[in-house]
């Protein structure tokens, strides 16, 4: 088991390296010369040389990458062009705001989707199933930015129940979900965000559980005298690996934050930060944010892999 865990972690290293290489390459993939961003168009040749030297652009690209990677590993992602503040601090601040949103959305979406999916599987083909299936198709089909705007119009503008944007007057520094004044601000974005994984997890749970319920061993369970609740428990345990795999992927997506949702609700998370960085051509911020998000995605996948191995004895643990 531990050998397996060690091997999976080892496998993740080259993927993570690939991610860093891509993020580094962003500077060169972006249109134009990175120096143009720093310099006025009429800068003299000497100034250009000087800047090149100070920023290390005179060295060969692999050396530049090694230096950048070394700094990134120590937590130094450079300085934002727009604000002149360290990128690491900007990204981590935004990340903590996104985590508030996405963890709440994940908890809401996963519990609701799993319960509804289970009900649909249990009442396979009957009206409960059709209702849940219809709901999940709507959930998958409705664009979440549209839903966000509709929710703002209904609950913030028309009814005036909830705030439309932002994180509240106390700002993002001391945000707590236990504080109702602040929690109110999170409700609409959390609900909107939870609609992203809701449909797909509902569908996955439904199909995985109803497939398990068709297996032969379910008859054995009934034949040995188990009640329907115990049978369902067995079915869930069997369907869990498949459901967890999809949940993990969705969790990874949500951790990345949603540019659309965070922009609509002016929620200062990573998605909002990315949007800002793109508009201001703030390459270091873009680089740093994408790097952190991609690494989180890699880590989430790794965690899902390991959890799956723990819950499914059929996956060989060698």
């Amino acid at each position, binding site marked *: 088991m531990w050998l397996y865990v060690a091997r999976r972690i080892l496998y993740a290293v080259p993927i993570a390296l690939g991610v860093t290489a891509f993020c580094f390459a962003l500077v060169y993939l972006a249109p134009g010369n990175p120096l143009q961003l720093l310099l006025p168009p009429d800068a003299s040749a000497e100034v250009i040389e000087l800047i090149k030297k100070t920023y290390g652009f005179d060295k060969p690209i692999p050396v530049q990458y090694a230096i950048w990677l070394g700094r990134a590993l120590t937590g130094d992602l450079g300085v934002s062009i727009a604000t002149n503040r360290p990128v690491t601090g900007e990204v981590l601040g935004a990340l903590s705001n996104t985590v508030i949103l996405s963890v709440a959305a994940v908890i809401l979406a996963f519990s609701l989707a799993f319960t509804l999916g289970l009900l649909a599987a249990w009442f396979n083909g009957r009206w409960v199933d059709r209702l849940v299936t219809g709901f999940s198709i709507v959930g998958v089909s409705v664009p979440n930015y549209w839903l966000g705007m509709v929710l703002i119009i209904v609950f913030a503008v028309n009814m005036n129940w909830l705030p439309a944007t932002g994180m509240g007057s106390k700002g993002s520094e001391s945000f707590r979900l236990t504080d109702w004044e602040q929690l109110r601000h999170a409700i609409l974005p959390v609900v909107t965000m939870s609609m992203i994984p809701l449909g797909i997890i509902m569908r996955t749970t439904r199909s995985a559980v109803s497939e398990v319920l068709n297996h032969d061993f379910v008859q*054995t369970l009934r*034949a*040995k*005298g188990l009640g329907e609740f115990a049978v369902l428990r067995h079915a869930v345990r069997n369907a869990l690996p498949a459901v967890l795999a999809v949940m993990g992927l969705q969790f990874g997506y949500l951790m990345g934050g949603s540019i659309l949702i965070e922009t609509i609700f002016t929620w200062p998370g990573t998605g909002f930060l990315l949007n800002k960085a793109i508009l201001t051509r703030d390459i270091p911020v873009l680089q740093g944010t994408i790097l952190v998000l991609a690494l989180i995605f890699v880590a989430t996948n790794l965690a899902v892999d390991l959890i799956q191995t723990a819950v*499914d004895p*059929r996956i060989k643990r060698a």
Partner: protein
Amino acid sequence: MSFFFRSAPTTTASASASASASPSAPVADGVRPLVEVEDLQVRFVSREATVHAVNGVSFSLMPGEVLCIIGESGSGKSVTMRALMRLLPAHKTRMSGRMRVGDKDVLALSPSELTAMRGALVSMIFQEPMTALDPVYTIGEQIAETVMRHTGCSRAAALRRGLELLEFVKVPSAERRLKAYPHELSGGLRQRAMIAMALSCNPSLLLADEPTTALDATVQIQVLILMRKLQKELGMSVIFVTHDLGVAAQIADKVAVMYAGRIVEMGSVKEVLSNPQHPYTRGMLASTVHGQDRDRDIEAIPGSPPDMRRLAPGCSFAPRCAHATEECLASAPPEIRMGPARAVRCFRAGQFGAPSASLAIA
């Protein structure tokens, strides 16, 4: 270890002894049959069609007796067994008739009485040991779950009982196998684990749905010998579904031959296999390999089984029967009794002599 198992009561032993001497005597020495099924009908209803799977099956079984139900796929033998435990999906199954096991009227049981009966009074083993066990629980957990369900004992005690059961069904290194998952065991061991699970709460009636069909030939015989031994030791009644006449000859006291949802012939294993009176039984016996010349074709029964959605009014076997007359096509033949426990559903029963070749009865 036998203190844990209910030893066979003496009355049961004598009943089974008398049953093997003359399986015909039903209530001769005052012992009530353990199982009585009367005019069981099972239909599967869907929007497209109604399948008449079982059409008036009646039989009884004494304590300690072994009944083999023989028939081809779709003849209703498995459905009959599942009906006895009400394992068929309730919302599309229509059942009528009477079924009694012990003092339980099976069709009248409430859901909680039903689950209390399953696995305790009646238990079942299935054809495919590969798929009949839950793949994500260990063998021990699955046996313990049954024990805990019916005795309410602790998990530790249930696992001890599981170990004892695995040793009882001759699983080598039982301690290690208790912690194994189904996919880590061979087919034969899995079926033994399945049998251990079925026996865990001392059932009075064991239903075995082709338990040896999916196994290798050598393993088949081992499992069969084991089952016969367990049945003798525990004195339980067994209904054994098979399409293998050799298996029936090995293990059965009584044989019921099913065709198109009806028992077409029933009697002691010896009578039915050595002197079959229904053309279907005769055809089936003729189509087995029993030392005929190698270049002679095996006699297959012509035609194919009827469509259970549209059963003709007459004898269901008539379209394939060489002896069929106008009478056979017009109306279904009644049960013709040919002895205390021998019955044949054929207008011409009793007109056939003993066939030239018959299976040797063990």
